[in-house]
């Protein structure tokens, strides 16, 4: 499984090949909530997940 580095602690995380942009991961070592970003060239990196609301509509 490909590894990406944690932007918070610098450690590494296993990210599945089929992970989609926006997919959220918790880095077990440091507890950071991370979001997968994929740019136009298809290169992948992790960023700290923003505080994101759940959806509450009717």
């Amino acid at each position, binding site marked *: 499984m490909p590894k990406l580095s944690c932007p918070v602690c610098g450690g590494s995380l296993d990210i599945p090949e089929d992970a*989609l942009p926006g*997919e*959220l991961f918790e880095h077990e070592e440091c507890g950071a909530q991370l979001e997968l970003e994929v740019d136009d060239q298809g290169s992948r990196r992790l960023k700290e997940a923003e505080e*994101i*609301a*759940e*959806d*509450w*509509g*009717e």
Partner: protein
Amino acid sequence: MMVVKAGGRALESNMEGILRSISRRAGRGLVFVHGGGDIVTRFEEALGVEPRFVVSPQGIRSRLTTKEEMEVFNMVMSGKLNKEIVASLHRLGVGAVGLSGVDGGLMRAQRKKRIVIVDERGRRRAIEGGYTGSIKEVNTKLIETLTGMGYIVVVAPVALGYEGELLNVDADQAASAIASALKADQLVILTDVEGVLVDGELVKEIRVGEVDKLGGKIGVGMNRKVLMCARSVEAGVSRAVIASGLVDDPLENVEKGAGTIITR
């Protein structure tokens, strides 16, 4: 002051009974918040707008409200349903004013630009949010002015965003926010079951401090209602009740002790 909310299913099954029950208590200061998500879905299908639903990490299924869907949502909620309810109340002999949260800035909400869902593979993802929001402010002065004039205020769950956009807010949240802001005597949520059921048995009373323990024992939709009730009680509402909207006189039924009471 009393705030009553009825969901679309209870209203479709027993609109006459619910509105008759409300009309009998018109003089006491009453706000009625209506749902109607299933009716919106039917109109979306008729208009060729494909409804899309998402599931939150807590397991709550809700509408992902696109701009096109918001147009239909507003037409059905603020227009068709809200005005039919107001007309029915007038037919029953009581004055009513129908408003959405947009009118007079009755409900101001913060749009959720990014939301977390659980996708079809069971993985958590952050996606662009639709037109849904969290209610931040309620114009209590407008409500108190209208109820002071003897009107029942009928509220559609559409809020005004801070960028002037229309937002879908669920009716449980709307009723809870309005009851909290008014420090209402009572919040009543009418639904299509007799209250909170655990293992098929009705729970008569839930204290706010016990709400967290219930989480896994009740369905996610009911859990949401309990959380909204608890939030309003914590904000100063004397008591909140979840009860059946399917009986002849739902509010009389509540007065006799039916349903689940959420208290401090």
